[in-house]
């Protein structure tokens, strides 16, 4: 089982290697990187390439570790008990598996994406240690232990909103997605805009990386914003020369008013930076 990237998702060779190591050693893969560098898309690409089912577990601030394993629907059971529906004595009927639980219970190997783990409570990752190590969990209500027959591939993303505990980090394979280099970015943009003119793309990339390098910028634009910007420029039929002169549609690239003004100010300085 080897991951080699897909036609719509471009990965660096290092990342492909790391993914394969994580799969081979059966360790969770923790992905970090600037927003918009494709952390979440990676799991989809692996699922597509290896033809495995992907289960996504989106983490919120209220998510508890057990939610990913199973949910005991007490309310339904209580209701059934009151109104006489269903077999109330069969607790199993009220146990619903979460994404991780489903992957453990399945006969087939699955991919579980634990998306934005840093959104949850600080203790959340620690609560999952045992389950990720042993790939099994106990359903308290029934006393049943569910052990994975096919250990799922676990991909975890974090946006660094919180530090993750050391004990958790030790168990993961870690990869930090670098922001794409201009050359690599060109490849990525080509996936979205296969027929873009070279002159236009050159100009857009130059300006994009110049903007990203402005030190005072509050929020640096990412890949998806670049792709959108290019789409807007092309739709409006703007030429490469006009991009340099006017920097049109900055609002697509920058989401803060202060950043837009900052870029405009920087662009109007007499010595053109970035050239």
């Amino acid at each position, binding site marked *: 089982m080897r991951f080699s990237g897909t036609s719509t998702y471009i990965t660096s060779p290092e990342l492909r*290697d*790391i993914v394969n190591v994580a799969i081979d*050693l059966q360790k969770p893969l923790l992905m970090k990187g600037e927003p918009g560098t494709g952390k979440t898309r990676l799991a989809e690409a692996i699922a597509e390439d290896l033809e495995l089912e992907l289960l996504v577990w989106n983490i919120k601030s209220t998510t508890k570790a057990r939610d990913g394993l199973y949910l005991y629907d007490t309310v339904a059971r*209580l209701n059934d008990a009151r109104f006489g529906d269903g077999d109330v004595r069969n607790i199993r009927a009220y146990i619903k598996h979460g994404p991780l639980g489903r992957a453990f219970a399945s006969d087939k190997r699955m991919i579980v994406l634990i998306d934005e783990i840093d959104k949850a409570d600080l203790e959340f990752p620690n609560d999952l240690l045992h389950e990720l190590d042993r790939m099994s969990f106990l359903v308290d209500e029934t006393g049943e232990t569910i052990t994975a027959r096919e250990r799922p591939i676990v991909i975890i993303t974090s946006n660094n909103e919180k*530090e993750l505990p*050391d004990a958790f*980090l030790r168990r*993961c394979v870690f990869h930090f997605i*670098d922001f794409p280099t201009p050359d690599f970015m060109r490849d990525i943009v080509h996936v979205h805009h296969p027929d873009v003119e070279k002159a236009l793309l050159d100009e857009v990339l130059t300006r994009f990386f110049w903007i990203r390098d402005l030190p005072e910028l509050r929020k640096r634009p990412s890949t998806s914003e670049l792709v959108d910007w290019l789409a807007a420029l092309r739709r409006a039929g703007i030429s490469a020369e006009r991009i340099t002169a006017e920097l049109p549609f900055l609002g697509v690239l920058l989401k803060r008013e202060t950043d837009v003004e900052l870029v405009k100010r920087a662009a109007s300085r007499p010595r053109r930076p970035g050239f």
Partner: protein
Amino acid sequence: MFVDFLYHLRGHGLRVTPTEWLALMEALARGHARASLGVFYHLARAMVVKRESHFDTYDRAFAEFFEGVERQFDLTEELLSWLSDPQLPRDLTEAERQQIPYMDLETLYEQFEKRLAEQKERHDGGRHWVGTGGVSPFGNGGTNPQGMRVGGSGGGRTAVKVAGDRRYRNLRSDIVLDTRQMGSALRRLRRLSSDDQAHELDLEKTIDQSARNGGEIEIVMGPPRRNRLRVLLLMDVGGSMDPHAALCEKLFSAAHASTHFKAFKHYYFHNCPYERLYSDMSQLKGRPTAEVLKEIDERWCVILVGDAYMHPYELTQRGGIINYGARNEETGLQWLQRLRQRCPASVWLNPESERVWGAPTIKTVRTVFPMFPLTLDGLTEAVDTLRGAKPNIATKEQPVDPMAAFRSL
């Protein structure tokens, strides 16, 4: 050699655990490094370095350890220019592949140096000289599996070179700070309510109780899990703080954006807080400090940001305030102590490098407030201190007289 590398990494302060090391060994045993130092660089990093803020330390340790494994050669400009324009490699038949010269690393280097000395002209597609697109072990764009890359762009930069670039320097936790990182450090600053009244429905317990009750609904209430931490941020602006303005602004926006505080207030001061605190940076609109103090209590955390660098008078003399036309009846130090007594959970963040913390006024401020550098590590430490701070424990040390220290200079 590999165990040496483990201790080398640990010697650089990377806390690599045996479990992680064994996992790396397993990955190596399964052939994931593919006998390439470049692949090994990324593999080892993924297995033993789990924070991007440690990447730079890893890079330095790696470059130091493997220096010499990849040698540097002096290449003539001319040779490099032939190589920078590679000819595409040939498609080889299996028979041709068999004939590709093979040699081990030592021989490879020896041969390379020898051939470099002999070569006089450009070669492309050959099997002996340094050139592009050929099967010679030297050059680039070629097909020799054991070959050595010389010049050229893209793909295979050498691992030591990559490590030597120190691209992750900006991610080091002891220097960088951006708003996000500060926000994430501040997020750890919380105190969950334990003594709040039970006024939130505990659904699980309610259902459990109701079930035990034979289906008769019994409501169970519990305390809400909400952060009840309140934060007061006081920032020094102007004068010697100007070089740090951008950094302080980032801290400010991070604290301001932290929605998890129960309350957040901020004021500005210049050099030292006195009778008035200001709500604007130009220090025109102000409020009496006493009034601000009245509104806060020991449930508040106070974070002061400033270089604590001023004339000793400003700290110890009545009327020592630097603002022209203002006069303070009580010394700056008294105000600081009052603040500290009001809110024992308080820290001072200093953007100046710790090297200058021996300055008299900084020393004095440090007797009142625990001081931390305004870096990610410092902020994290400060947050830990604030989390651990128990109300009503004032600092025991007596303030030193900064004038005495000043005079002795």
